[in-house]
């Protein structure tokens, strides 16, 4: 029994990793006042670019650079369309998601010359796992925490980094001020548009880590539509945490547990689909609860 629990917790961390990256990516744009619906496409782009370039050059570094570049390119297209050409941001993001699901398959075809749903034929490199020297010796805890992919540890470090960036740096201050009152920021010479570009760029950088974790860590190949809604789950984790990085990461872990649970349940009798529904239904329920709390608070304020 203990063995199963340890394995389960290990897999929770494993499947939560991309969600944490995604949620953190969503937090940054949220703090700039924008909802990021395009995390899915940023992750897909980086997942494929990482696989292709690392496969072709046999260099992990180049592969990862390509992954970052791909995701950031996506964010720049979105930013240009939305903030310069004045296209609706939601529409742009949705169009980008649709384009990337097909686009990645198409690029895969260009690279391999075959029509396939996975790019298994590309000998891509993968990012290795890491056994943490001291912690791995600790019984139980060591088994849960040690031996994960390096990017998993990066994800946990990233929670702190994003929090630090948002709350302790000049740029974080500017992002938050633009998100809350763009006019105020503009009146002291901060260009909201530049902040939007920047926050989307940063968001793409972090989402790229999530994408590459999927194709070069969690799996070691690229598959069609391999994010399977993870970008949207990340976005809802951010949403119920109102854009706070630490709570968003916790929400991502909660959704990750549901995901891990559904993997386990597939073996048993319990319908795994119902567990897969959990993050989505949970988000809606939490949003309703939060709205109810808001209403009650507002009503209380009115009657002192």
């Amino acid at each position, binding site marked *: 029994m203990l063995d199963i629990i340890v394995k389960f917790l290990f897999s929770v961390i494993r499947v939560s990793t991309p969600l944490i990256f995604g949620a953190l990516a969503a937090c940054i744009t949220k703090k700039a006042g924008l909802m990021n*619906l395009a995390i899915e496409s940023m992750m897909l782009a980086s997942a494929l670019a990482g696989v292709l370039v690392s496969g072709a050059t046999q260099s992990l570094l180049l592969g990862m650079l390509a992954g970052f570049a791909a995701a950031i390119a996506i964010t720049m297209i979105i930013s240009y369309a939305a903030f310069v050409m004045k296209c609706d941001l939601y529409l742009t993001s949705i169009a980008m998601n649709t384009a990337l699901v097909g686009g990645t398959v198409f690029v895969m075809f260009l690279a391999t010359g075959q029509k396939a749903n996975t790019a298994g034929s590309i000998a891509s490199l993968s990012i290795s796992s890491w056994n943490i020297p001291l912690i791995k010796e600790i019984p139980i805890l060591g088994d849960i925490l040690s031996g994960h992919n390096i990017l998993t540890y990066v994800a946990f470090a990233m929670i702190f980094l994003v929090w630090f960036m948002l709350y302790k740096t000049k740029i974080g201050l500017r992002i938050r001020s633009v998100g809350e009152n763009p006019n105020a920021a503009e009146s002291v010479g901060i260009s909201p548009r530049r902040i939007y570009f920047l926050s989307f760029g940063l968001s793409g950088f972090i989402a790229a880590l999530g994408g590459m974790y999927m194709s070069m860590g969690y799996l070691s190949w690229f598959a069609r539509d391999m994010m399977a809604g993870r970008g949207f789950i990340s976005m809802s984790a951010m949403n119920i945490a109102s854009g706070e990085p630490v709570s968003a990461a916790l929400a991502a872990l909660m959704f990750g547990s549901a995901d891990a649970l559904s993997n386990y349940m597939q073996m048993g009798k319990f319908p795994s689909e119902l567990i897969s529904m959990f993050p989505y239904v949970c988000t809606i329920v939490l949003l309703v609860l939060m*709205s109810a709390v808001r209403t009650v608070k507002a009503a209380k304020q009115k009657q002192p």
Partner: protein
Amino acid sequence: MKETRRIEFIFEIVRILAALVIAYGVTLLCIMLISDNPGEAVYMFAIGPFTSKRRFGQLIGKFIPYLLTGTGMCFVYASNRFNLIGEGVYLMSGCMVALVATQFMSPETPHMVFILVLILVGALTGAAFGSIPALLREKARINETVVSIMMNYALLYAATYLVKAQMYDTSITYMASEPLPAAAKLTRLVSGSQIHAGIFIGIAAVIVTALIFFRTPLGYSIRICGSNPKFARTAGIGMTSSLIAAQVLGATLSGIGGAVDIMGIYDRYMWTGLTNMGFDGLLVAVLSKKNPIFVPLGAFLLAYMRTGAAVLNYTTEIPIEFVDIMQAIIILLIAAEHFLGGFKEKYIFKATKSKNKEAAKNA
């Protein structure tokens, strides 16, 4: 003034055409670059859909649900809400139709009754699930985009669960429902093609939507709310009810779309992923500029593009997915206010200036 209006109209058309030409140009260029036999590939993509009864039938088979999801998204888009529930209810309606047809109705039910009941099932499924994000948005100010996207995935899993738990056909190797009874299928109008009787339902949807839009108080209200909510409120229009109605009607049409698609094309329910039909509906609404009268044009265009890509997919080595990129380019260019916007202003400015000069001369 007349001049201004003419320029605006011409520029709208030029913009849409330019968007299409650019997207098409990029696509054709790509095809030529990657294909071993570019001439044939371009031919297949551009003319392919019209080269056989089967292919043209395939085009119409796509056109029919686009009419329904397109008009549905017109409602949502015209009310200025970004509610994407059309995607999820499309699939759920298909599933409910299959469930009712295979589990709850006798295969001997008369054809017309069967069809009407199933369409009603689709419509109700759409309305029921569509009302959730709409109510949450209008009554509790919860972002409808987030809720609808969450619901889309929830509905996908729920539908898969329903298939597995209630109507799994164990005699086949892939996951699908039991086959639909013959009486539940829409009549094929042209044998050997996918042209089916659903086209009448699609056309009816366009007409009804256009009537609601332009000939009913609700349609006036929806358009006014979508265009300027503050004015709508000041003028005394019941915003909450109009906006809920718009979103629920949109979802209902999408639901009918899913039902018609299953009954028209498929033998059984077998969708295991999001169909993208809701998002395609959004594209149709964008192409037709929120005007239901133009939905058939937009729907045909999209069906043609997608069929061309499909033809290319099975006649050459080029995969179908490139059309998704093309679609995104079109959406971005058409929806981008500033795409060619500078030109428009310049021309209007010129026209106004020359008119002012004339007026000055006359005075």
